[in-house]
């Protein structure tokens, strides 16, 4: 074969691979510019922002243990301890608590309102919320905070949508550092999975915290020699090649695009009725039951409420399933002596926001979860009124032995 023939043969044989690789890297490089928002805030809706309340330097409302851009729970617990108050109200929830739709200057979420009202009564307020938080996470956090602070009241929203979620997210596994909390959640299968996941993320000798939390991407290499070389190579690549460092972002955008494509092909929108996922529902109701049981055992009153939902349009749930959910929650509340409240129609339609299109090329859609400042005010006032009218703060002590100094 002469040179020309050799070159042609090479192009034909290796051309698609080389060309394909070049085009792929070029496309990814061009996509570097359009980096999207963080995954958490994608679900917040149009014009909805995250607000985690503070009182001066004191954190009142926190998100998780590890995310670098949001308030860490440790801060909130330390802040609550520093108040030296004997009575702390713990409010757990999902993004409804930290999502504020179309905020104007000075407007806040429900937390500062309730905080002020409770402070006047000599009680503190600690609020923890995560996007799509489920009852398994609420139960674990309840146990974790109970070990640290004298809890006087637990305020817990019941959100049907969140019963579709399952498991405890990585960012909350830090709550399992206490062996009593581990023992408590290990009574369930999902709890044992979470404890195993927590133990797997524990820092090994010589490892930084960041390296420990990054280890999930190299789970298959745990305790092998390759773990070290892979980490070194990845670190070097991330420092030298922007594209490599942006891979987590690309993965997030890929999944989001798949999500939009799925919705487009199947005609799914924010208003589409979503069925309960039985297995997840059962595990979440089991977690709710455990939380109520433990609260009753430790004489901690619980204010359990059906969370507000946009009610002036058709709900994205099957009516029979949603009705069953409310019945199940109320039944558990009655069984375990919790105070039950249905607030689903509390916030009027005009105070709710819209969410970004969930289809390719679609229009903004109804946001069933996040409302404006006035809605937050309503929520805080209603909860406080309930607490006052039923003297929920007067029941039980719930002092944590660890708090006694």
């Amino acid at each position, binding site marked *: 074969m002469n040179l020309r023939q050799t070159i042609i*043969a*090479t192009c*034909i*044989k*290796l*051309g*698609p*691979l080389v*060309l*394909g*690789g070049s*085009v*792929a*890297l070029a*496309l*990814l490089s061009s996509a570097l510019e359009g980096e999207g928002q963080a995954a958490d805030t994608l679900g917040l809706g149009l014009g909805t922002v995250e607000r985690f309340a503070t009182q001066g330097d004191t954190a009142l409302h926190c998100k998780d243990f590890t995310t670098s851009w949001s308030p860490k729970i440790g801060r909130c617990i330390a802040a609550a301890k520093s108040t030296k108050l004997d009575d702390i109200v713990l409010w757990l929830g999902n993004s409804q608590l930290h999502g504020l739709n179309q905020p104007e200057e000075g407007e806040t979420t429900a937390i500062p309102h309730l905080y002020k009202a409770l402070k006047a009564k000599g009680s503190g307020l600690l609020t923890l919320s995560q996007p799509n938080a489920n009852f398994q996470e609420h139960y674990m956090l309840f146990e974790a905070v109970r070990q640290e602070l004298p809890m006087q009241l637990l305020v817990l929203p019941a959100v049907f949508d969140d019963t*579709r979620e*399952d498991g405890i997210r990585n960012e909350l596994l830090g709550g399992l550092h206490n062996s009593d909390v581990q023992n408590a959640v290990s009574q369930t*299968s999902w709890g044992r*999975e979470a404890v195993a996941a927590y133990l797997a993320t524990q820092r090994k000798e010589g490892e930084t915290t960041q390296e420990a939390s990054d280890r*999930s*991407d*190299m*789970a*298959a*290499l745990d305790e*092998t*020699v*390759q773990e070290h*070389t*892979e980490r070194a*190579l*990845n670190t070097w*690549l991330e420092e030298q090649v922007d*594209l490599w460092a942006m*891979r987590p972002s*690309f*993965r997030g955008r*890929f999944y989001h695009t798949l999500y939009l494509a*799925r919705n487009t092909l*199947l005609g799914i929108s924010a208003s589409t009725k*979503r*069925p309960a*996922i*039985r*297995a*997840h*529902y*059962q595990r979440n109701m089991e977690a709710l039951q455990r939380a109520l049981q433990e609260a009753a055992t430790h004489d901690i009153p619980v204010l359990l409420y059906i969370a507000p939902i946009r009610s002036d349009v058709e709900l994205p749930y099957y009516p029979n399933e949603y009705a069953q959910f409310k019945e199940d929650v109320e039944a558990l509340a009655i069984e375990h002596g919790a105070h039950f409240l249905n607030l689903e129609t509390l916030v009027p339609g005009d105070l709710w926001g819209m969410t970004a299109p969930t289809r390719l090329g679609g229009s903004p859609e109804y946001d069933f979860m996040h409302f404006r400042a006035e809605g937050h005010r309503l929520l805080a006032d209603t909860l406080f009124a309930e607490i006052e009218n039923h003297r929920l703060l007067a029941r039980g002590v719930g002092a944590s032995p660890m708090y006694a100094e």
Partner: protein
Amino acid sequence: MIFNSVTFLVFLLLVVVLYWVLPQRARLWMVFLSSITFYGFWRVEFVPVMLASAITDFYVAQKIDASSTQRRKTRLLLVSLFVNLGLLAYFKYLLFFASNVVSVAAMLGVEIDPITWNIILPLGISFYTFQTISYSVDVYRGFIKPEHDFVLYGCYVTFFPQLVAGPVLRAREVIPQLVQRSAFSLDNLAIGGRRILYGLFLKVVFADNIAPFVDDGFAAPVAALSALDVWTLAFLFGLQIYFDFSAYSHIALGAARLMGITFPENFNFPYSATSPRDFWKRWHISLSSWIRDYLYLPLTGAQVHDRSTGGLATATRAVAASKTTQALFLTWAIMGLWHGANWTFVLWGVYHAVFIYAYRAITPYTKTLPQLIQRWGGWLLTLPIVMLSWIFFRADSVEASLAMYHKLLIPDAYPFFGLSSNTYIVAALLMFATLVGYVLHSRLIPWLQQKARPLYFCAETVVFTVAIALVFIFLRPIQQFIYFQF
């Protein structure tokens, strides 16, 4: 060392370059030492275990060949079997057998303290012990002469592309290619590169993304699942294990091909099979042919062929049907147990034995049907039966497996969805994609290659663009290969 990692890609590049620049002897040493290094990247303390198996059979084979009496040859072969199966028995089955003894004793009212040792299963032990056993047996049968060059033999046993999860290779398939290095060719480079890309794509894009759905489904309480969910999980895990395992084989074949070494195919679109025999000629072909030649046929007493195309063929007329049936069930129970130390794997094997037995029984009656019906009817029956077998393979316990199978028999258990909607969507899409892939591979691609080369070139470029972009994004060792646990 795990394939879906930057470390492996760097390692492979170095080894391939050295393979083509080093002279013969240095090249063999490089292959041997790099293979040991590859294995040591997992846990260096288990390298001696692998070498113990290799060294045993190296010397046993030479002694067998030098022996003058059949009796001595047999005794020496038994030494090989004792060492290799002994390693398997200790590392893989000791705790399983011990726990069964404790359970049986407890049923009889006798209390025995369970063994609480932490025995780590050496990576690839089920594969390399089978490989060394096959070497000794082939020498014993007179099919091959023993190798006197330990480095060359060591390259065969430890050759890194196939060391951890196959294909299970015979000595005659690899050693001649190591001795006589083929000329460097762009064809091998192109084919090897394609196979590696294809394998990485199947693993990091498909298999690793299916895993959370499968894990979620099998972790759910069986009471919360519908019969439809059981079907979905069976198909979904069937797809996951196919993508995962065939991915490993593609990368192994590709890596070897970069060095001009050709391995036999290990998968051939198994979910297009039209019968259980056809399935086992398409799934993990190297293992099924190994089992046939070294276990099944000897158990039937039939004459062993010195070549095998995989799968379990019907016995020759010289063998009694009852013996064939016994051999069938025993072989498959052992095949199941080889996959894992759990009764669920044994039941998986027996499930396939029942399937094969039933197929053999009805074949005389179906042979007269039109070819079209045999083919399509066979496929429509074989696919769901094969997929359902994966329930035993993946479920945590016999009880959970049986509970899931029981669901399928309850009509009321059908009409609800217990899993997230994405689970069903992913299962349906990937099953469709697998079947489309088969049609493309068997019909469209050969046609394009023959009749429309420029179009084929463009189409391939587009496909590789997407594949490389996705592999780039998803390449991370987040999940081990499923067959690593065997």
